[in-house]
């Protein structure tokens, strides 16, 4: 683009980049069977879980890091990563109530805008707060328990509900699934567990707020959500991390299980530290998310707004096993400066009359590289399966890139698939039109981008849609001079 307006790329400071000074229990860097045992021991886990971890670890040793994604980064030294860090106060196990949570931690979450004091919450959102390797607080537990819902840290679930964990852990993402999932299975430290019993509609939004605080620490959390017959739940996760010059690894696993007629709506607003303007630092976000529509007419939808991380590698997917089950993937991925994102979904149609919808909106600015990678697979017995895919890319400036790799595999001739794709550029014309009506260049970009992403943003729970809109604006601030 000829104009100077789009050439000058600067960036607003990442607002969540502070470090909180808390006394932290950190184990030495490095990975071995002993480290896996140490983590399991610190968490006081039962024998079966240690065995599960060790099996995953031994399998991981035989695997190689995947290289097919359209992202480049220097080799990761897995022996330089710290695999466990916990605020000292939670050394003896998670605090019993909010009163036991360290004031510094409460202050940190307050600064991040995450409300942990229940009485202050108007919208009625239950929060599980995870810092580094452990969950430090979960709100509204009692209220949820009164309708039979279990919402707690993963560690607590292992202690209090071992049968449920044993039944569903690894049932959607096996420990040998892929390199990063295997690593997570070996060293995962905490995360959220959520169980909605038969026929219960969860009365409030559930959310987990992930925060990396400690330097050189990897974050490896697992989330497991099970919705029994006819249960309905909406779940949201948010993520931030301090600004650091070094890259930090985040390799999470999320498993969703929906039984007959159950519905799970999973929304993510991912704002890990993206690195600075020159591409220094930032989180490596290698995440495996998968949902299994195990029952008839069950529904799982993934909505993600990905604005952070130096590298994003994630493909929230749906296995549409039950007849008549429905999967959806709505995504906005934004890359600015030197961020790289390779993200998309897999829709695997196994049951009859299964349906899936994919709407992907990629926004690239600065030197950002944005890739949509998706697969739609229609298996042999998936009579009457349908898929609709839409992949749109928006470019801001002339140094960035957008790439689309849609894979389609159809083994049943009764399937209907539609695919639409477009690439557009925020032109000088659009910008000038807005500015001629009085809008600043930055407000104009924010308006155009939000219009572009609207179809996805409206899938977010109301309370978070507004936040996500602002986040898109902030992440692009300074992308036009």
């Amino acid at each position, binding site marked *: 683009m000829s104009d100077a307006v789009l050439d000058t790329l600067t960036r607003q400071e990442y607002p969540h980049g502070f470090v909180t000074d808390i006394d932290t229990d950190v184990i030495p860097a490095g990975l071995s069977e002993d480290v896996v045992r140490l983590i399991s021991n610190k968490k006081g886990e039962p024998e079966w879980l240690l065995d599960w971890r060790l099996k995953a670890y031994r399998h991981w040793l035989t695997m190689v890091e995947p290289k097919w994604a359209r992202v480049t980064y220097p080799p990761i030294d897995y022996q330089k990563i710290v695999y466990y860090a916990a605020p000292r106060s939670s050394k003896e196990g998670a605090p019993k109530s909010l009163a036991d949570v360290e004031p510094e931690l409460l202050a940190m979450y307050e600064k991040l805008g995450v409300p942990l004091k229940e009485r202050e919450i108007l919208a009625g959102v239950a929060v599980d707060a995870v810092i580094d390797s452990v969950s430090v607080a979960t709100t509204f537990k009692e209220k949820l328990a009164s309708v039979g819902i279990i919402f707690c840290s993963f560690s607590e679930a292992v202690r209090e509900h071992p049968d449920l964990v044993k039944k569903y852990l690894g049932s959607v993402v096996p420990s040998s699934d892929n390199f990063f999932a295997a690593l997570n299975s070996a060293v995962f430290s905490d995360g959220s567990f959520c169980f909605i019993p038969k026929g219960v509609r969860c009365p409030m939004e559930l959310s987990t707020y992930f925060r990396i605080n400690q330097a050189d620490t990897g974050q490896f959390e697992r989330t497991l959500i099970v919705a029994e017959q006819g249960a309905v739940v909406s779940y949201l996760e948010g993520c931030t991390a301090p600004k650091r010059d070094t890259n930090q690894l985040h390799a999470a696993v999320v498993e969703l299980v929906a039984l007959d007629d159950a519905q799970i709506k999973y929304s993510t607003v991912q704002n890990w530290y993206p690195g600075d303007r020159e591409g220094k630092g930032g989180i490596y976000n290698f995440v495996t998310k998968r949902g299994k529509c195990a029952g008839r007419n069950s529904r799982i939808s993934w909505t993600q707004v990905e604005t952070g991380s130096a590298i994003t590698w994630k493909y929230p997917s749906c296995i549409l096993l039950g007849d008549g089950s429905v999967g959806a993937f709505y995504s906005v991925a934004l890359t600015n400066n030197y961020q790289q994102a390779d993200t998309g979904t897999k829709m695997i149609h196994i049951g009859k009359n299964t349906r899936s919808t994919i709407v992907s909106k990629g926004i690239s600015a600065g030197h950002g590289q944005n890739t949509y990678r998706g697969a739609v697979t229609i298996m042999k017995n998936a009579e009457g399966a349908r898929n609709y895919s839409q992949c749109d890319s928006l470019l801001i400036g002339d140094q960035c890139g957008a790439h689309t790799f849609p894979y389609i595999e159809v083994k049943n001739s009764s399937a209907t698939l539609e695919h639409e794709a477009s690439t557009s550029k925020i032109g000088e014309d*659009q910008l000038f*039109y807005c*500015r*001629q*009506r*009085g*809008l*600043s260049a930055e407000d104009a970009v924010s*308006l155009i981008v939000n219009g572009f992403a*609207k179809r996805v943003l409206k899938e977010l729970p109301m309370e978070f849609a507004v936040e996500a809109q602002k986040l898109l604006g902030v992440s692009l601030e300074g992308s036009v001079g």
Partner: protein
Amino acid sequence: MNLLEITNLHASIEEDGHEILKGIDLVIRPGEVHALMGPNGSGKSTLAHVLSGRPGYVVTQGSARFLGMDLLAMPAEMRAREGIFLAFQYPVEIPGVSNTYFLRTAVNTVRKHRGQPELDAIDFLALLDEKAKLVEMEETLLNRSVNEGFSGGEKKRNEVLQMAVLDPKLAILDETDSGLDIDALRVAASGVNALRDGARGMLVITHYQRLLDYIIPDFVHVLSDGKIVKSGDKNLAKELEAKGYSWIEKEPPATASAVAGAAAR
């Protein structure tokens, strides 16, 4: 005070340095409607772009003052907030952004700049409703994305609607008649006429005389090769229609600028 005062304005295309405007002099006082005519490539749209601050042009000589302010030193959005409105020849589409939301954002940005309180949704809709009637705009178009899927006529009416809502001090209409059939032209023109109020200045750029049957100008200027070569009253447009632009191009420019000067005074 003069609304707009352009003196010896020279401007070139930034990319290749090609000079388009070669010394424009023009004065618009409050309430006056000036028509700017001229053959293709004479610089009509370039003048509209330079006055409204579109990137891509370099002013090499001369000045433009708007209500005494140095217009050329202001970024495009400041010019808009101070009251310059450009009705685009080719209005731009903004997918996913509703027309109503866009306009309300613009109005409140301008109001904020003027120190007026922002309009809430209810007050804004009342204003929009009133102005939409001026250009016979259907409600469905207000809720659609900005200009997306609009016909040529709908886009131009939308420009006039935006002008009515934003209430500018100086409106520049860049070939608002181009691509319009006679009915659409009538609707757009009557919208513009409703906004003539003795205070607002207008610069109506057109290639054809027919728009000026509906919007009767106080002054007509003819632009040729980057200069105003002839100025007069509404009859000049009719004379042009009869004789064609080649008639003007043969005239010596010195006489023309003397007339333009007289018209300005």
